[in-house]
């Protein structure tokens, strides 16, 4: 993996629910393990900014969106399956 690549991740949640907390914790853990120093996580609470849901075509929460590198990838759920998340984000090859 190219170590100079930047990762911009966005996590959409709806309030501080159990699922969103779990998702955020999981995400932070995976990023620390595999993308240390190369990533940025932006958490968007749709309860606060509902108008942002349309832009990224959010239906389900929590949804993790990989904005950079392209193409955009989405992972929904509490991100409990580590391997699926890493493969989905293309951090490790399938």
């Amino acid at each position, binding site marked *: 993996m190219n170590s100079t690549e930047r990762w911009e991740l966005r996590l*959409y949640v*709806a309030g501080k629910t159990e*699922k969103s907390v*779990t*998702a955020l914790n999981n995400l932070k853990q995976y990023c620390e393990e595999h993308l240390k120093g190369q990533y940025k996580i932006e958490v968007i609470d*749709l*309860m606060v900014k*509902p*108008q942002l*849901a*349309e832009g990224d*075509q*959010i*239906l*389900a*929460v*929590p*949804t993790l969106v990989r904005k950079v590198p392209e*193409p*955009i*990838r*989405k*992972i*929904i*759920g*509490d*991100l*409990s*399956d580590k391997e*699926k*998340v890493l*493969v*989905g984000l293309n951090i490790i090859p399938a």
Partner: protein
Amino acid sequence: MSKKETKNNIQHRVLEKTPTGISGLDEITGGGLPKGRPTLVCGGAGCGKTLLSTEFIVKGAAEFNEPGVFMAFEETADELATNVASLGFDLQKLQKENRLRIDHVQIERNQIEETGAYDLEGLFIRLNYAIDSIGAKRVVLDTIENLFAGLTNIAILRAELRRLFHWLKEKGVTAIITAESGDGKLTRHGLEEYVSDCVILLDHRIIDQVSTRRMRIVKYRGSIHGTNEYPFLIDENGLSVLPVTSLNLEKNASSERIPTGIKALDGMLGGKGFYKGSSILVSGTAGTGKTSIAAHFANQACNDGRRCLYFAFEESPRQIIRNMKSIGMQFGRHIDGGLLKFYASRPTLYGLEMHLVTIHKLIREFKPEVVVLDPITNLITVGVLSDVKSMLIRLIDFLQNEGITVMFTALALNTVVGDQTDEGISSLVDTWLLVRDIESNGERNRGLYIIKSRGMKHSNQVREFVITDNGLDLVDVYLGPQGILTGSAREAQQITERTGVALHDYEVDAKDREIGRRRKVLEAKVLSLQSEFESAEEELNKIYLQEELKKQVSEKARQEMLRLRRGERGEEPTVEPKKKSNE
């Protein structure tokens, strides 16, 4: 549950309805969709679900001042706008005015991974945001089942959809949820389990290569609704549902009469013609003059200053104008005067429903008092008999509601009166004229009957129907010992009758003369008898006189004798000659 309880508590509160603005749909639902509740619209691909829901939203925003949110799971906002622009809806304008909001929900399965638990709160938030931003009263979710294609966790989806419909009810918006039907079920994923207030099924059937769209209200909780399948169609004005029969029979019945254009026919109908606003069927075999009767009626209407719309399904208008000129009618004049309008189309051009709508539309535009459909028989080629019948019922209903007099012509294929069903509308029409061939002596003549004419005195006689250069006329047929005589047989019979009269007259004359002569003879006889009687009488008188004279003479002689015996002188010589002269 909570709904039911409130319903029981408030006993007399009637279900409020939200008008859809779709012509005909509000009539069959008795006012529209249930207010503040979700309605499920299901049907196969291409049956008009999206159009129905778009029209619901657009009409709500434009006509009922109820802003709406359209959540599209299939098409983008631009695609949607383009699709309905052809129907005259300007979505962009409505969006700018904050009366409409289109939210395109895109689900790309290849972009999405699912790991662990999630919910659809994002969708709720989006919908809520859209509703609140414009104060929407109407919501459409088209087609929410696409979620099933994009997401794999069916258990979550089902739970979330159930929550969504609940949430919509609580939000108090009138919603339409569309769903594809399939596998013999109303919806592929069983959405009808969640939406239980109102379910509308759309259908698109092809029978004999002609497609007809139909709509049925499967259920409508808490409301009376039409249960039939109602044909509907999509044209440049959007969707319109045509109730098969108008739900009431509350038509105005005019007692005004409208002449038929044929004097003798007026005479057969109590001297005044048809009722205004009634329906007339003219049926007959080929070439019996049905179009001519219809043309006379149209012509008469125009002469009286009534507007007439003539639907020709067989001939072109020019052809009709030319043909009718040959029997003395000048249609060109009426067309120029704007009283007469022809509309010609091939019945096979499009389906029955489309014909019906075209007819409706033209009638609404032209506002005629008289409508002629010539002939309706050809419509049979487009549809099944029952469909044609239902279409005609609807047409007659519509025309009678508008107070328009309509004349249909129909080709009858057999000549037995009892067998003629005439597209089954004979029971619907008010007046039924039958023109039939009467074949005898190697010639064919036309006979006209009035089989029925509701509410007026009408002749029960068969009239011979003749087409002359000056138009149509009816002649009394001759009823002789051999049956009905028409045409030259009738003429012959009339000649025979005329000769008979002449002969009879001559005979009477001869008898008169004979009697005169006999009278003279008898009179002469009477005279001679009288003179005979006179001479007999004279004879009798003579005898009386002689007797008298004899008496006188003998008396005188006796007196003379007496005098002589007393010695006096008698006058004997004077008496003697007197006696002699009397003899």
